């Protein structure tokens, strides 16, 4: 009972820790939504809270991707918005007046606390309560998870990681108990995961892999059948219920592994059943008969399947999954996927930054999982290995590696502390208690390593809690020693030889491990406070006068929302689409959903073309205002000039008259006097550097580090309407077409527009 209460109290403390370590951004800046994607989720949640669930489900959004629009109900993963919406509704029903924004900002820390409890449950299934508590405490602080779930980061991963760990917990629990009730809960938890994140394909491929591993290593049992078969059927149905997934649940290659393993499992189960019915000789006969007939049928079916799959150009896989399997695929065929910074492979230091000490505790955890190997611990090892591979392909998938690393490190640390405290207990009891009772052991006292012969059941109990008081321990040891003398004389059949370390070594090791934990905690708190709490919509810098705040983005969006008509269309690069619709409430041409490559390429082409051609493209899209982000005055490095080459590449991918070498001088991208004329005349250059020379007289760009090429020029088709305080966001208006076309061109020119 004491152990249970202590465990519950520790879990509550872990939850509070997980919640509070994510509050740095609220303390340092304000309670605001961060980044780009969370603004879209916030806008959808606002819509849901205002109009109810039926309107949300059938919502067609005409304020983005003008003139195409976007079917929100069918293309968004509804889990996060429905969760936050229901929390908001519940809290307001209790008459606690929290606004939608507050609920959205704090959803992620709440769910990270719940996720660490889920990690405790999952690790407990594999290795016991001590390992569970350790893993939960580590997950509460791991920087990789903090980076995507800090207060204000209202993104899918905030709830998806909880759903992932909880689904794995229910799967392992079903595997351990064989209860159909947990299998049902597993399917429902998988449904919640499918609702929340596109990464659910990881679950539906990892679990079949594990089932296959169990079958191949001879660990097939009827509990495996109960754990897997209902999950496939119920899971596929539930996944098909979510509109985003729809029929992809049965048609795309990401799910084929689950069906294949389903069939294999049934074959294996049938074989075991027949084996139970027949005598061995008859069974051998049956096998030879079946194999000759069955192989022929198998080949026919497999040939049909392969022909079906090979007929589709991507072999049935989606672009993102293909880029996971073949890391070079995206850069060759789909520049949009390659251009997202989160999709780049991680660097080696980012592993140490994101999972820190866990990086070398994980191999110890793998070894600990093998002694002894159970279904649950083999699942952990498989999860870790696949997560390490995928995290090596895309840096945003470090997040999937984080729970696996935490679980295995928790197991490693718990086993290490287990051995060390057991040694300390044994050595201290020997120190206090030398007498004839010990002589039966036959092991020398002192610094050499000694072995203890005990009955196996007694030591399994000591694995559970390390906090038993010392008097109890020495009493237990005395009882154990007396039992040992008796058992040695009786010569028992079951003996477990557990190694015990010398006292000084175990004390020093315990202190060192605790110091290691201390370093980990210090790093996590530093990472949370300094590295991952920036809302990126507000920037700060420290100077001699103190803290300087750059609030240019919100300044620009507020200007747009106050000084333009409600129906005006704003064109910008797709990065800023979500923020523009959410904060400025204006219609945009392209946004972060990036579902239509040609539309993005149109905007990219317009930004790369000279002024007149760009004006014509924008006019055909009914655009009134163009927004560019420029960091040259203050040294903000993620501005549009640095992203410009991607615009050229994506535009050039669809419209061949835009060629990347035209913008490079000798293969180098530059905007100074050495730049190519195409570069100096394109719309992006002109809109960014218009009147820039007036700031310091020389036009020195602080990001690029040199003076710009073309300094004095006028705009013929655009006029500047707003530039923010630090010149970070610049808004231009399209000049209306002239009433009279001058000169010889009396007839209307037929404008050749880029085809959709």
């Amino acid at each position, binding site marked *: 009972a004491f152990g249970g209460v202590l465990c519950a109290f520790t879990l509550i403390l872990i939850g509070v820790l997980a919640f509070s370590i994510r509050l740095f951004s609220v303390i340092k800046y304000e309670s605001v939504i961060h980044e780009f994607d969370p603004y879209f989720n916030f806008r959808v949640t606002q819509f849901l809270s205002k109009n109810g669930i039926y309107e949300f489900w059938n919502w067609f959004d005409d304020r983005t991707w003008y003139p195409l629009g976007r079917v929100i109900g069918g293309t968004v993963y509804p889990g996060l918005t429905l969760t936050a919406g229901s929390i908001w509704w519940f809290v307001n029903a209790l008459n606690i007046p929290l606004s939608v924004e507050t609920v959205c900002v704090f959803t992620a820390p709440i769910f990270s606390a719940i996720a660490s409890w889920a990690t405790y449950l999952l690790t407990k299934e594999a290795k016991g309560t001590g390992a569970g508590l350790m893993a939960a405490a580590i997950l509460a602080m791991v920087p990789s998870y903090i980076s995507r779930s800090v207060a204000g980061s209202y993104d899918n991963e905030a709830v998806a990681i909880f759903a992932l760990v909880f689904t794995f917990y229910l799967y392992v629990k079903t595997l351990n108990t064989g209860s159909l009730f947990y*299998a*049902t809960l597993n399917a429902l938890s998988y449904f919640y995961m499918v609702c929340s994140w596109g990464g659910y394909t990881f679950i539906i491929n990892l679990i079949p892999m594990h089932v296959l591993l169990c079958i191949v290593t001879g660990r097939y049992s*009827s509990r495996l059948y*109960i754990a897997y*078969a*209902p999950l496939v059927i119920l899971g596929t149905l539930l996944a098909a219920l979510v509109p985003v997934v729809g029929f992809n649940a049965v048609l795309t290659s990401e799910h084929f592994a689950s069906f294949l393993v389903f069939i294999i499992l049934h074959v294996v189960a049938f074989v075991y059943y027949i084996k139970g*019915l027949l005598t061995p000789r*008859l069974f051998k006969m*049956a096998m030879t*008969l079946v194999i000759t007939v069955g192989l022929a049928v198998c080949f026919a079916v497999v040939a049909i399947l392969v022909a079906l799959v090979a007929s589709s150009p991507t072999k049935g896989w989606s672009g993102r999954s293909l880029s996971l399997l073949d890391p070079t695929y995206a850069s060759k065929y789909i520049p949009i996927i390659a251009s997202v910074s989160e999709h780049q492979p991680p660097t080696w230091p980012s592993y140490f930054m994101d999972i820190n000490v866990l990086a070398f505790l994980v191999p110890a955890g793998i070894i600990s999982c093998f002694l002894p190997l159970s279904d649950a611990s083999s699942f952990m090892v498989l999860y870790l290995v696949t997560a390490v591979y995928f995290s090596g392909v895309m840096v945003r998938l470090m997040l999937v590696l984080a729970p696996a690393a935490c679980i295995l490190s928790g197991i490693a640390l718990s086993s290490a502390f287990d051995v060390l405290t057991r040694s300390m207990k044994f050595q201290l009891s020997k120190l206090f208690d030398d007498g004839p009772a010990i002589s039966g052991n036959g092991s020398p006292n002192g610094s050499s390593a000694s072995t203890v012969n005990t009955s196996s059941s007694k030591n399994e109990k000591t694995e559970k809690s390390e906090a038993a008081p010392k008097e109890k321990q020495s009493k237990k040891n005395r009882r154990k020693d007396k039992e040992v003398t008796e058992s040695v004389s009786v010569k028992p059949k079951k003996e477990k030889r557990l190694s015990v370390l010398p006292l000084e070594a175990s004390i020093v090791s315990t202190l060192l491990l605790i110091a290691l934990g201390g370093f980990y905690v210090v790093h996590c708190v530093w990472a949370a406070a300094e590295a991952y709490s920036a809302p990126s919509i507000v920037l700060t810098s420290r100077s001699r006068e103190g803290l300087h705040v750059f609030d240019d983005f919100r300044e620009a969006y507020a200007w747009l929302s106050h000084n333009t008509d409600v129906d005006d269309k704003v064109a910008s690069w797709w990065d800023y689409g979500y923020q523009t619709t959410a904060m400025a409430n204006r219609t945009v041409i392209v946004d972060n959903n990036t579902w239509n490559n040609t539309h993005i390429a149109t905007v990219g082409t317009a930004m790369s073309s000279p002024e007149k051609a760009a004006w014509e493209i924008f006019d055909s899209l009914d655009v009134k205002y163009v927004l560019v982000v420029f960091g040259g005055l203050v040294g903000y490095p993620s501005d549009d000039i640095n992203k410009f080459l991607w615009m050229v590449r994506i535009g050039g991918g669809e419209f061949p008259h835009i060629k990347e070498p035209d913008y490079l001088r000798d293969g180098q991208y530059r905007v100074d006097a050495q730049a190519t004329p195409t570069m100096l005349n394109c719309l992006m250059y002109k809109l960014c550097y218009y009147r820039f020379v007036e700031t310091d007289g020389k036009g020195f760009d602080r990001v690029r580090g040199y003076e710009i090429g073309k300094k004095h020029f006028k705009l013929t088709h655009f006029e500047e309407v707003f530039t923010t305080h630090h010149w970070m966001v610049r808004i231009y208006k399209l000049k209306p077409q002239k009433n009279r076309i001058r000169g010889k061109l009396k007839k209307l020119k037929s404008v050749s527009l880029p085809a959709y």
Partner: protein
Amino acid sequence: AGGGGPRSDPHRAGFTHCLSSKRSEGARFVRMPKADGDAKLLIQSLNKAYAATPTNLKIIDLYVFFAMVTALVQVGYMGVVGSFPFNSFLSGVLSCIGTAVLAVCLRIQVNKDNKEFKDLPPERAFADFVLCNLVLHLVIMNFLG
């Protein structure tokens, strides 16, 4: 003793008849006589072993068989008529396969020969089966369109 005599005669005749027929049949199947006899022996022993299973398990097996036949009928119907409301087809077939799978799970849990589940009361197993079927059919009805 007297009654046994005339009765044994037709048996003996049948036996010799049987022998002669086997000899002629043996001439025909001279390539794989062993496989054919083996298959018959296999099926006979399977039948005998299966007949020994308890009745409640046989009822579950019948239910599984019925569900699979229904699924096959639906697939055949789809082949004839086309798969237009694909969600209806999918939900119909998956409901049959799903309830068959759940029945197999029930059979595993109720089977007295299964040592892993010997302390699971069959009422609990049946209650789990009903619950899982409820969830399955709720989803099916939602997806049926």
